[in-house]
């Protein structure tokens, strides 16, 4: 049993982590909040006083706002659908008996470990370059006109790149979940003559429900924050400016800190809505 002394010690051991994280959360958060109510242009006069909710209104009424919201939704939504659907299929396949399973797993997981700037640049140049890219070669081979990927289907290209990056994550987690499935139940269903589709729909899919939810929530948080992939490929041009990228441009490129901070507050609220659901699941798991 823990004694009073060990409780005190425990508290001291926990303190540095708590203090640091508290500072890391509160200091920048409060600064962002303060800036968001100010007219603050570091390169053009600096702090020009309070403006109330002006920045919040201007951020959502600017012509760039709604396109950025739509872009963000399309990007996050498409990547989620692609990675979850393909992830389930791939996890089901990888769970089957086969030769060289370990190696195939490694091949499938590898993209997750590639740094985002490398991913973006390799796709941009070696695959999507309209003249020398591999896809252009492929298109020409079939007698088609090469696609100028990053300007003509810019958002689609970024969806492809980001999906490639995140498919391993979804697959790996769903595979882990499938492996924890009770084999006997499946076997019993098979004995009773349930066809593969029914076994999937009534036993595997319900079992995967929680894992799918977790994949969706965690990926949403990361996907909302996608940055390097856009920075390196299109720089936010051709309709690929997400909310994150828009805020980045407001803050660092045009140095309109007040406006960017108001955008930042919106982003924080958005991420927190997703986070609440995730925390609820994780929290339940802690009790178990």
């Amino acid at each position, binding site marked *: *049993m*823990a004694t009073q002394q*060990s*409780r005190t*010690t*425990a*508290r001291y051991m*926990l303190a540095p*982590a*708590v203090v*640091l*994280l508290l500072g*890391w*959360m509160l200091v*920048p958060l409060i*600064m*962002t909040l303060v*800036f968001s109510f100010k007219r603050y242009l570091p390169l053009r006069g600096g702090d020009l006083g309070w403006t109330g909710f002006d920045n919040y209104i201007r951020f959502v009424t600017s012509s760039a706002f709604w396109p950025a919201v739509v872009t963000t939704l399309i990007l996050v939504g498409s990547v989620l659908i692609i990675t979850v659907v393909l992830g389930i299929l791939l996890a089901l396949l990888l769970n089957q008996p*086969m030769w060289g399973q370990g190696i*195939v797993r*490694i091949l499938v*997981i*590898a*993209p997750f*470990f590639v*740094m*985002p*700037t*490398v991913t973006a*640049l*390799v*796709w*941009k*140049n*070696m*695959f999507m370059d309209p003249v*020398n890219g591999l896809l252009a*070669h492929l298109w020409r*081979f079939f007698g088609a006109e090469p696609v100028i990927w990053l300007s003509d289907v810019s958002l689609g290209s970024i969806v492809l790149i980001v999906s490639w990056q995140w498919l391993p*994550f979804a697959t790996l*987690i769903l595979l*882990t979940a499938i492996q*924890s499935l009770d084999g006997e139940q499946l*076997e019993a269903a098979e004995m009773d003559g349930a066809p593969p589709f029914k076994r999937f729909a009534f036993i595997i899919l319900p079992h995967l429900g929680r894992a799918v939810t*977790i994949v969706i929530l*965690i990926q949403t948080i990361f996907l*909302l924050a996608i*940055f*390097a992939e856009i*920075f390196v490929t299109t720089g936010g041009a051709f309709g690929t400016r997400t909310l994150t990228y828009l805020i980045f441009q407001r*803050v*660092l490129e045009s140095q309109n800190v007040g406006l*960017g901070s108001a955008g*930042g507050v919106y*982003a924080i609220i958005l991420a*927190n809505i997703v*986070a609440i659901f995730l925390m609820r699941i*994780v929290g339940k*798991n802690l*009790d178990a």
Partner: protein
Amino acid sequence: MARAVSQQRKIINTTSAWVIGLLIFFPILWTILTSFKTEATAIADPPVFLNFTWTLENYTAVLERSNYARFLWNSIIIAGGSTILGLIIAIPAAWSMAFVPSKRTKDILLWMLSTKMLPAVGVLYPIYLLFIKMGLLDSRLGLVVVLMLINLPIIIWMLYTYFKEIPGEILEAARMDGASLKEEVVYILTPMAIPGIASTMLLNFILAWNEAFWTLNLTAAKAAPLTAFIASYSSPEGLFFAKLSAASTMAIAPILILGWFSQKQLVSGLTFGAVK
């Protein structure tokens, strides 16, 4: 399984899994292959796959760029430093929550997790400003601290999950025998916790190595790690496919190898123990 899987089905599984696996891996494979081609072969039409004269000239060229070693060194210092610093702070915290839990432990754990959800772009300017004020902009120290902080919740969570699995009876027995708190930690917990600590270290090193928001926004020339070095190939140097491939291969190879060792921990680490 009780029923033997037919050989035929196994062949179909194997073939389709290998085809899909290779397709997914292909961009990486292509990058590695291209890194051994000459610039001319790299853009040959039609593309050559294996039948080319292999050369190391791109690696020599990239390594000869006076600053490559510095980018690499920065990556090692930043990823390694933030991981070690994070462990120093996280081990006692996770230890205390796992072995001396209180009513608030669960809330503290969840709150720590919530700090991880804070979108970086929301606090970009404050951090940028604080960095300027404290002279940390474009410094390795600054990035070590920031990357340590963004990964600290994951480190604590992973360690907590591992420590939780150490049976409490062992500790009680040690206490009965009169072991002090210090002895308990040094002689009993640490040896049992080393595998968990090692995998936490591995995963966090990978995450820090690949981090590409703060490393791009808070560095210029001096402290930039490989993420920024690669981004600098964006244009017009990116047109040199073979050199880009060599630089990319060098930036990802160590992490691919480390990553293969950490697949198992990846799942519980990144889902905060919700999927095991």
